[in-house]
């Protein structure tokens, strides 16, 4: 049984590697085999969580680095409640999205590459979840980033229809529409910036702890000889924790590194659903959850818990608000969902941050992770449904849709259910989990954070209804009328596409209805993570996620309904006009608060300008001329002694050279006198050697 946990992440990777082989046999086999491997992973995850005891299943990897202060590096799979919780969500949602992909992507030509990277992604995502140490985790972490890059840029030929953003749109004079290959690169670089911070933190931790293993890090954290004390002595403990959090900020698209995710929508919608909504962007939340308790133990010894966890909570709450405002003016349906994802992840981060600020660590911790689960389900459903909507309407712009519900009842129903979950309307799962985060912040006396969260609820209600209204209700747009005229009727999706998002939407409803029942055991289960790490985490009050205070619930439901009502009044049953770039506050939101443009001005244009300046003024201005001066002098000198060159060397070479030898020809080519240089400089070497032999060896 000890290999079963390994099986979870290895099987999709094997699937990826076999994709080209299956492709040779038949495209159909290739497609369904890819789905099959993702199913194996999902089954393995479930079986493991039911049958395998919590523990660290290790094999040797890099034993050579071990020394008295450093442990040998092993590879291992850590089976514990947190990893199993995540692995099951990821593997099953992935499987459904893979099923959807078969039909959704069928007309595309580069499918071997698609399936390869999809399975590689699933494998790496599971690896990052299951890894028992930071080094191995980085493999998964960078691996998912790589697959994300490759799949955002899937349509690498950059045809216009695959761009994201309104063509010709600019902010501060910089273009705001991105081609797939550009969006992929942008995503990679943005997350890389977070990764750099993460790597610095890992280097610092290892320099003091001598291990990457989570369990060892947890046992070695405390005491005066622990790694936390080592870092704290130099005042590096809080900075290290914050730098570590940089990785999750980048990966989970939190402020200030949130700008890559909206443009990542240039990839196929199935990719957006899998990577940029349901799974990869949660990796940051997961990692914060993985190391959060360990950092808590580290920081609590030195009374430094507050700055770290307050930063997480504030970044989360602020991002939730920021992205929600941008979602209210977006023109593309996928961008609404992307902003919404950023915003919802903000809630999760808020939960994890609140964990360290309240009296009961487990309260915020489980709330954040529960919201991760419910978001993975409803957002995957929304994206997959949106994929069909875009396909059917032949446009990614919501103002070119409208009235679609008539042609696709089930899709509209799925989107409505999932949308209600997103808004936080009872009894859907999103209601319970988002409220757990909000009430945890209220109970931790973080009223400002709570206020930001509530404001976001209002916005969420509004933008979700706006999206549903513009897409499904009212009269069809001119674009749709034209399509109709050309004879293509809007219709329902095929079964294999419909089923995944319908299941997910219904799942969100069922989990919501059952939530009061499953909440206590699941909370207990997740709290088991702390005992696997063998660290003491305060759980003063009993977990309260189940017993929500009625007032808090009433407030958030009322606010959500208010937002929804606003959206309904403004966008349901309306004529659709093309959205043009708005001015004023809306324009500010449309331009993403100008953050994206400012980043480009400063970092992209700025570093190019610095590099260009260095090239012009230092490389071409200083070093090259210097080199030239030296070269000229050498050549001049050579010319002066060219006679010698011709008389002695060429003569000698000619005498020596035989018929076949072409060496003399080469020599002759260097009429500038290189030969001369060559002989003289060699002579110096030989003379020095001779002197050495005579004076040193000879003398002894």
């Amino acid at each position, binding site marked *: 049984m000890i290999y079963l946990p390994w099986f979870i992440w290895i099987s999709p990777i094997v699937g990826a590697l076999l994709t080209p082989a299956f492709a040779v046999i038949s495209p159909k086999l290739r497609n369904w085999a890819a789905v099959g491997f993702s199913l194996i992973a999902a089954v393995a995850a479930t079986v493991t969580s039911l049958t395998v005891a919590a523990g660290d299943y290790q094999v040797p990897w890099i034993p050579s680095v071990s020394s008295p202060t450093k442990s040998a590096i092993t590879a291992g799979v850590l089976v514990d409640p947190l990893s199993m919780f995540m692995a099951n969500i990821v593997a099953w949602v992935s499987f459904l999205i893979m099923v959807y992909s078969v039909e959704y992507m069928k007309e595309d030509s580069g499918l071997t590459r698609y399936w390869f990277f999809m399975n590689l992604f699933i494998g790496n995502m599971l690896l990052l979840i299951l890894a028992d140490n930071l080094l191995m985790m980085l493999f998964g972490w960078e691996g998912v980033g790589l697959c994300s890059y490759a799949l955002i840029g899937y349509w690498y030929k950059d045809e216009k229809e695959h761009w994201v953003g309104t063509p010709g749109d600019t902010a501060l004079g910089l273009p705001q529409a991105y081609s797939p290959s550009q969006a992929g690169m942008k995503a990679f670089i943005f997350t890389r910036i977070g990764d750099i911070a993460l790597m610095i933190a890992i280097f610092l931790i290892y320099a003091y702890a001598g291990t990457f293993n989570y369990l060892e890090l947890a046992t070695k954290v405390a005491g005066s000889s622990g790694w936390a004390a080592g870092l704290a002595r130099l005042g590096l403990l809080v900075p290290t924790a914050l730098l570590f959090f940089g990785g999750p900020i980048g990966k989970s698209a939190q402020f200030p590194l949130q700008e890559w995710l909206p443009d990542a929508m240039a990839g196929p919608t199935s990719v957006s659903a899998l990577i940029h909504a349901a799974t990869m962007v949660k990796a940051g939340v997961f990692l914060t959850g993985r190391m959060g308790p360990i950092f808590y133990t580290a920081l609590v010894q030195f009374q430094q818990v507050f700055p770290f966890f307050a930063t997480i909570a504030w970044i989360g709450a602020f991002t939730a608000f920021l992205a929600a405002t941008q979602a209210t003016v977006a023109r593309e349906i996928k961008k609404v969902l992307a902003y919404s994802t950023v915003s919802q992840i903000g809630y999760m981060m808020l939960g994890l941050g609140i964990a360290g600020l309240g009296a009961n660590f487990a309260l915020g911790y489980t709330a954040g992770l529960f919201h991760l689960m419910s978001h993975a389900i409803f957002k995957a459903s929304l994206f997959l449904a949106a994929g069909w909507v875009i396909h059917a309407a032949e446009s990614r712009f919501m103002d070119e849709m409208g009235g679609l519900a008539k042609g696709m009842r089930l899709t509209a129903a799925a989107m409505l259910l999932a949308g209600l979950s997103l808004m936080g309307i009872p009894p859907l799962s999103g209601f319970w989990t988002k409220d757990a985060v909000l009430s945890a912040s209220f109970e931790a006396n973080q009223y400002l954070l709570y206020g930001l969260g509530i404001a976001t609820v209002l916005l969420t209600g509004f933008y979700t209804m706006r999206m549903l209204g513009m897409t499904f209700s009212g009269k069809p747009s001119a674009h749709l009328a034209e399509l109709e005229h050309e004879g293509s009727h809007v219709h329902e999706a095929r079964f294999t596409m419909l089923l995944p998002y319908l299941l997910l939407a219904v799942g969100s409803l069922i989990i919501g209805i059952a939530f009061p029942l499953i909440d206590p055991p699941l909370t207990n289960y997740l709290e088991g993570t702390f005992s696997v790490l063998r660290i003491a985490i305060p759980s003063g009050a009993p977990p309260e996620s189940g017993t929500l205070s009625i007032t808090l619930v009433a407030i958030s439901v009322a606010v959500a309904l208010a937002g929804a009502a606003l959206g309904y009044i403004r966008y349901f049953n309306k004529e659709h006009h093309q959205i043009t770039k708005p001015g004023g506050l809306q324009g500010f939101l449309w331009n993403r608060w100008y953050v994206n443009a400012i980043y480009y001005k400063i970092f992209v244009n700025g570093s190019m300008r610095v590099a260009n300046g260095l090239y012009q003024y230092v490389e071409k201005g200083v070093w090259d001329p210097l*080199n030239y001066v030296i070269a000229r002098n050498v050549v001049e000198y050579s010319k002066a002694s060219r006679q010698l060159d011709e008389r002695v060397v060429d003569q000698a070479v000619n005498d020596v050279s035989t018929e076949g030898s072409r060496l003399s020809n080469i020599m002759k080519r260097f009429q500038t006198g290189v030969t001369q240089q060559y002989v003289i400089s060699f002579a110096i070497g030989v003379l020095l050697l001779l002197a*050495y032999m005579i004076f040193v060896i000879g003398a002894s």
Partner: protein
Amino acid sequence: MASLLLVGTIVAPLVSVPILYTLGRSLREKTGYACFALLLIPLASILLAAALASGDASGSYLESYSWAPIGTFGLRADNLSIPVLFTISLLTAVIALFSVPYMQHKIGDEPERYGLYYSLYILYALGMVGTVLSTNLIQFYAFFEIMLIPSFFLIAEWGYGEREKISLMYFFWTHVGALVLLVGILVTAYLSGVTDMDVVRVFFSSNPNVVPSIVRLGVVAAMCFGFFVKMAQFGLHIWLPNAHAEAPTPISALLSPAMIGIGGYATVRIVMTIYPDMFFALSAFFAGWALVTMIYGGAMALVQDDIKRLLAYSSVSQMGYILFGLASFTQIGIAGSMFQYVSHGTAKGILFIVAGAIILQVNGERSISKLGGLASKMPVTATAAFVGFLAILGLPTTNGFFSEFFLFQGSFIRAADSATLYRLIIAILSVIATALTAGYSLWTLRRIFFGPTTEATAQAKEAPWTVTLPLIVLCVVTIFLGIYPEPILSRLVSAAKVVQGIGLL
């Protein structure tokens, strides 16, 4: 002891020089296949020597021959040299294959010139292997120069642009560097009375105070100058972009991945082994210098339009990484740096072959702005370029990840131990500098391979097998070592332990 195995890696190529030269006239471009076959001999010998070395208690396989009165002419494959030798012999072999179509394109219909190219080529390979195998300082210097001569002629004969001037500057800089190194070697030999590296090392470690430290410092400075010119550290780098960009591409693919890093190897083998304390004294300064090189090389790469010049500046930056790890003076840092030699060797080997493939298939086009959309036209080349750039930017499952990870980890261990703000800040800045590498790597990939095709690339086709096979071989090595680095890393960690000094961590 002397079983003629390693001496064969020197003698076989040496004997091949006239053979290839004569064969060239009749075999023409096919001489390259013969050259490839002959270069499999050193590769096989080195793998065999590595196997023999693992059986040995000290992890080394040594052949020594009397070389009176200078000392011993020794050839040693040990934990430090085996990874380097493996990289060099693998690269020289596969690039001989790549030379076949490339030099056919470059030389064309002049049958007598093929022989000259391949005989110089194999001599160049011999020089590099000999340098790394050397156990004697004088022997080392001799091979160090032998490595220079054929490469100089190769650039001067088949280079691009102002090739005479460029090769002259290449020769001038590296030769001046070598002469300064020679002064350091001779002073060392004078002070210790011997030239065999092992004996010199024992002499200095058992008589630590016999030579005033200022003299030792001077010697270290001289030797490091010689090696850092080879490694093109900032300020000593100006010969490199021209030479690597304008050399015939197969030679660029040896200069940059295999040759310049030997400066780093020699720094460990000679300077850090014989004078560890003095190197340690200078290491904080070297670390800062290396950081400047990393950043400067990366910034220069960012603004290049010529693929080969971009790769050349990237090499400057990567050599900065190597010196940075060495300057941490920690076991993990030194092991990481020497592993970086291997990673950079395979990755830059891939990338220069890719550049060559593009030059071959897109009518000699080198300007990135005129390229685009090649991914669908040249899928194997594009995939290889992808792997190569990922290794350069240090992404997991490429060997570049491990080498960069460990060399940076080493610098953080040094920072933690010394507890100085300076060490901490340069360690942090060095990791930040990797963003530049990611920037130029991905941007270059995008401009060459993605987007719509251009006028130049519309008709391009995949390169022949003599180009793709070397790419595939190097990619396999890159990824294998990226998943399981132990065969290289375990040797290098043991090798780093041999470097002793007051400060080694």
